């Protein structure tokens, strides 16, 4: 508490004669800001001045600028200058700063406090997050500080206060930090709704969003400022830093495997480039990959142990903070991380960033590269480490895309009703709402601009009566109408709602602790369920031994020895982005034409040669389809290079369309490059495959028929149920209360499907599956592209370097870990032998195998 006091001014003192309280000519504030900048020895960037001026002119908008380029001051000093110019009374929040990251609120508060202190302004700045102490919370219940730094969830919690309208009536400016991150998730949608509410409370409020460079900036800005306002301004920061991409190439060319994703074969080469004298961040794509790399590095370089650390989202918060702190003060020099360190605090001493495995997206890679920022006015460099040979193309492609400035657009979600349901309860608690006015207000949020009366009505029914069929849900009232105003009348439900606010779905994870009591983080229930007592596994970079499970806590003991057993966390594997995919197709075409114009493509020369010998390499305007017969059956591998999600949607549809021509069953597997249909029998793909099978016509109907949407929707429903308040994340008071109402979302999905199949929440889960899981719109675009392309049907005698990894995916789904490894080795050996033999011998081999 005492520590906080030094940071915060007690808001009680009201003194006349303070500089702020004096009315000043309108330019004075900005002049003061300019003077403050000069006193720091800085000159404002043009984009900062532009933002201040536009803010003062009453505009809202979006600032596109890289992290660390002064965006906080760009957004904040405009409203600050206004506060300096206008006399104001105490009380009521004027500036609201919303960030997706709870961990950075303190740094942001400190940055904003600097000019306030230097200019001697009597303004109070506080943060409000899940970590805020109860004393500060109690004070904020009645009055908020002039400047409040918070997260979307904490903001929604404030909106559940009965005096919400009063708390926010003096709001002038809303600043949305890292908007490109928030935008694409339900947290972003929730923020849009909260902002629509705030604009209802404070009509003069202006909104400024801060985001990384986006190709669809206008849309992102519209999401931030809402519908109906004058068109938002878009301000571009001129500081676009050049990102350079280099690759750690294997010292021995043959070392890079043709299949894989962990990339540990690159360990010796990575160890060579690492140097504890140079603070380095090593990004991986998954949590289990980060665990494996961390432990492998420790085995290779045990002497680095004191300066090396692991950071991912499931690790205990205290440990993560220790790592972040260590990076900042230089005591930790090498950190293996996942996307948990993509955003947030600047680690100024960072000198180097490594990316292990596919960069997946261009913006993502640039964001990661940007974490190393020690040299001003120089570019950021990222070292890419391929995990298998084909990733060389991906890296070459990413470089080309960065040079061309091609970035992925980011869009908000289309009117998710679960988020609206949660928002309705929030509004019902925060002073209540009238139906018509809430509908009008909700429609000012960009994501809900097309919300129909029926959808609104249905969502209201959901929270009021449980569903559209009144009789199905007797005695259910989360909100009740009192003289036309909807309110939450039951205190127990209000408490439950506060505890469950938010849209982040925690997986069914368990806490993991030492038997001695120290917490380590969280782990998937699924993984623990499969563990036997005494079994060893790697977690948080440590070898642990499972002891026992009690009260949702998995107890472990430290262990010694070596194990490769790593938890696998849920979460879908991120597919490569559309922009990167396009660039990969171009890189392949260059390789095809012998233009090995980068180190990566040169390193891939061998694989290029083999692929060209046994099959072809497609041009950017081709779509390659390879047909191979092995003892497993007839394989058709199609390579659209559009990312795993699209292939996952396309494969079953093509299978369905082929099976219509001739009855057959196929097993399906896919990766980011293509997909495989395998028929156990001889199937005449050569005769039946045609461009016509890829038509986007009838796509929706075929998708419904081909894919077990229902099963996928069931897993997607978890998020929907959580947000709409059908399952509870936490419970007040005793655990006992919780047990009576704990049920998995899957179970609730089954109950709803059997007993209320018309539920719109089920429909939403299905919609989310189709859009998110298969990237429906991207799938349509892909099919259209294939329609314009040349389909190159190529029979091959053996699996090719392109098809091999996909076939392995199928084996991976079927076999246990150990046997896949053996099988891969065997296949690869066969391959090498085969390649060295003459064509006639090769033919003999095939025949022998297929008999």
């Amino acid at each position, binding site marked *: 508490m005492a520590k906080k006091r030094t940071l915060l001014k007690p808001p009680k003192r009201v003194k006349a004669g303070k500089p702020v309280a004096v009315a000043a000519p309108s330019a004075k504030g900005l002049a003061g800001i300019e003077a403050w900048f000069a006193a720091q020895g800085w000159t404002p960037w043009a984009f900062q001045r532009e933002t201040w001026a536009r803010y003062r002119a009453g505009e809202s908008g979006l600032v596109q600028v890289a992290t660390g380029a002064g965006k906080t001051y760009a957004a904040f000093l405009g409203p600050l200058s206004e506060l300096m110019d206008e006399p104001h009374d105490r009380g009521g929040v004027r500036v609201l700063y919303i960030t997706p990251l709870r961990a950075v609120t303190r740094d942001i508060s400190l940055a904003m406090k600097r000019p306030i202190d230097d200019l001697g302004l009597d303004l109070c700045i506080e943060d409000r997050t899940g970590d805020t102490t109860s004393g500060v919370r109690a004070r904020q219940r009645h009055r908020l500080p002039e400047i409040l730094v918070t997260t979307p969830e904490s903001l929604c919690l404030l909106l559940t206060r009965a005096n919400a309208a009063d708390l926010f009536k003096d709001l002038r400016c809303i600043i949305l930090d890292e908007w490109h991150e928030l935008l694409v998730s339900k947290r972003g949608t929730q923020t849009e709704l909260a902002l629509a509410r705030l604009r209802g409370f404070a009509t003069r409020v202006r909104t400024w969003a801060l985001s990384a460079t986006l190709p669809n900036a206008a849309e992102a800005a519209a999401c931030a400022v809402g519908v109906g306002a004058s068109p938002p301004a878009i301000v571009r920061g001129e500081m676009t830093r050049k990102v350079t991409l280099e690759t750690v190439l294997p010292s021995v060319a043959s070392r890079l495997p043709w299949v894989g994703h962990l990339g540990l074969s690159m360990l010796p080469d990575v160890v060579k480039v690492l140097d504890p004298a140079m603070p380095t961040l090593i990004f991986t794509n998954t949590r289990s990959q980060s665990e494996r790399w961390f432990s492998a590095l420790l085995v290779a370089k045990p002497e680095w142990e004191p300066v090396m650390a692991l950071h991912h989202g499931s690790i205990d918060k205290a440990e993560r903070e220790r790592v972040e702190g260590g990076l900042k003060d230089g005591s930790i020099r090498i950190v293996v991380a996942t996307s948990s360190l993509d955003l947030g605090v600047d680690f100024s001493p960072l000198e180097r960033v490594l990316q292990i495995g596919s960069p997946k997206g261009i913006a993502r890679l640039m964001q990661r590269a940007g974490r190393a920022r020690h040299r001003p006015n120089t570019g950021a460099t990222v070292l890419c480490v391929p995990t298998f040979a084909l990733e060389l193309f991906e890296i070459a492609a990413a470089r080309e895309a960065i040079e061309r400035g091609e970035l992925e657009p980011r869009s908000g979600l289309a009117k998710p009703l679960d988020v609206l349901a949660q928002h309705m309860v929030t509004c019902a608690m925060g002073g209540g709402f009238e139906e018509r006015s809430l509908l009008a207000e909700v429609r000012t949020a960009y994501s809900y601009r097309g919300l129909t009366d029926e959808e609104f009505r249905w969502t209201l029914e*959901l929270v009021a*009566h*449980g*569903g559209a*069929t009144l*009789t*199905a*849900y*007797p*005695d*259910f009232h*989360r909100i009740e109408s009192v003289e036309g105003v909807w309110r939450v009348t039951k205190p*127990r*439900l209000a408490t*439950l*709602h506060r505890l469950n606010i938010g849209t982040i779905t925690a997986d069914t994870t368990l806490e993991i602790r030492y038997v001695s009591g120290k917490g380590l983080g969280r782990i998937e229930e699924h993984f623990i369920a*499969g563990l036997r007592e005494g079994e060893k596994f790697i977690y948080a970079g440590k070898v642990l031994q499972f002891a026992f499970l009690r009260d949702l806590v998995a107890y472990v003991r430290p262990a010694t020895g070596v194990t490769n057993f790593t938890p696998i966390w849920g979460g879908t594997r991120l597919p490569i982005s559309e922009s990167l995919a396009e660039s990969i197709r171009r890189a392949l075409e260059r390789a095809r034409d012998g233009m090995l114009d980068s180190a990566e493509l040169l390193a891939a020369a061998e694989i290029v040669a083999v692929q060209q010998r046994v099959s072809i390499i497609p041009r950017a305007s081709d779509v390659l389809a390879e047909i191979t017969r092995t003892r497993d059956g007839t394989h058709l591998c199609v390579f659209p290079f559009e990312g795993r999600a699209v292939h996952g949607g396309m494969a079953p549809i093509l299978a369905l369309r082929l099976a219509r021509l001739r009855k057959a069953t196929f*097993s399906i597997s896919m990766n980011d490059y293509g997909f495989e249909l395998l028929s156990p029998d001889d199937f005449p793909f050569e005769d039946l495959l045609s461009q016509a099978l890829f038509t986007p016509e009838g796509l929706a109907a075929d998708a419904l028929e081909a894919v*077990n949407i229902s*099963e996928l929707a069931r897993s997607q429903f978890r998020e929907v149920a959580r947000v709409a*308040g*059908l*399952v*509870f994340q936490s419970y007040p008071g005793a655990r006992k209360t919780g047990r*009576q*109402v704990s*049920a*998995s979302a899957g*179970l*609730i999905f*089954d*109950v*709803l499907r*059997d*007993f*209320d199949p018309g539920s719109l929440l089920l429909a939403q889960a299905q919609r989310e599956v189709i859009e998110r899981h298969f990237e429906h719109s991207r799938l349509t675009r892909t099919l259209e592209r294939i329609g314009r392309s040349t389909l190159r049907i190529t029979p091959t005698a053996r699996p090719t370097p392109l098809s091999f990894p996909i076939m392995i995916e199928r084996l991976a*789904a*079927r076999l246990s870990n150990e046997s896949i490894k053996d099988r891969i080795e065997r296949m690869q050996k066969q391959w090498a032998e085969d390649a060295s033999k003459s064509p006639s011998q090769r033919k003999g081999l095939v025949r022998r195998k297929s008999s």
Partner: protein
Amino acid sequence: MPERCAFWPARRTLLVADLHLGKCETFRAFGAPLPTAVNREMLDRLTCASAQRGAERILVLGDLLHAPAGLTPALLDEVAEWRRSTDVEFSVVPGNHDRHLAKVTDPWNIRIMDPGTSEGPFAFHHFPVETDRFLWCGHQHPAKIFRRGSESIKLPGFIIGSKIGILPAFTRFAAGGGTCSTGRFYPVIDDCVSPPLEPLGR
């Protein structure tokens, strides 16, 4: 029986376990809208199963109820009405969820039996305990996950061993997964009870 119950012809007794009546009502009381039809379906399934075999007694092996918050007047009436419509005897061995069983004993015309009561070759309990006879019990909600490729399906079923028989949860609104090495697993697949299957993979 595929209705998730067992029939004992010699005593004309239908054995069921884990009905969790009022579970959806409990959820509704806590603000999660779940449909009430779950109870109705269960009562109908009970009626069907007992009529089909000509049962004269239904013996519930514990967890007839879910929680006090779920005992809404509507539910009390619905079950009382159902009890009046049939002359089948209704006995309950209390389970861990049945602390408020006394509230419904009279209106639902229930006979309460002591846990561990034995009849003929069998003993009846809610929990799988050690007895000197063949024990019928519930509580664990046996179910196993069967996978095929990326798809998986969870099937409830019976666990039958040499000295124990564990019934699946009668309600469809209950998570399963209790596993037991004391016997083999007989999954319920649609309208039949399958011979023992071992789940593929883990």
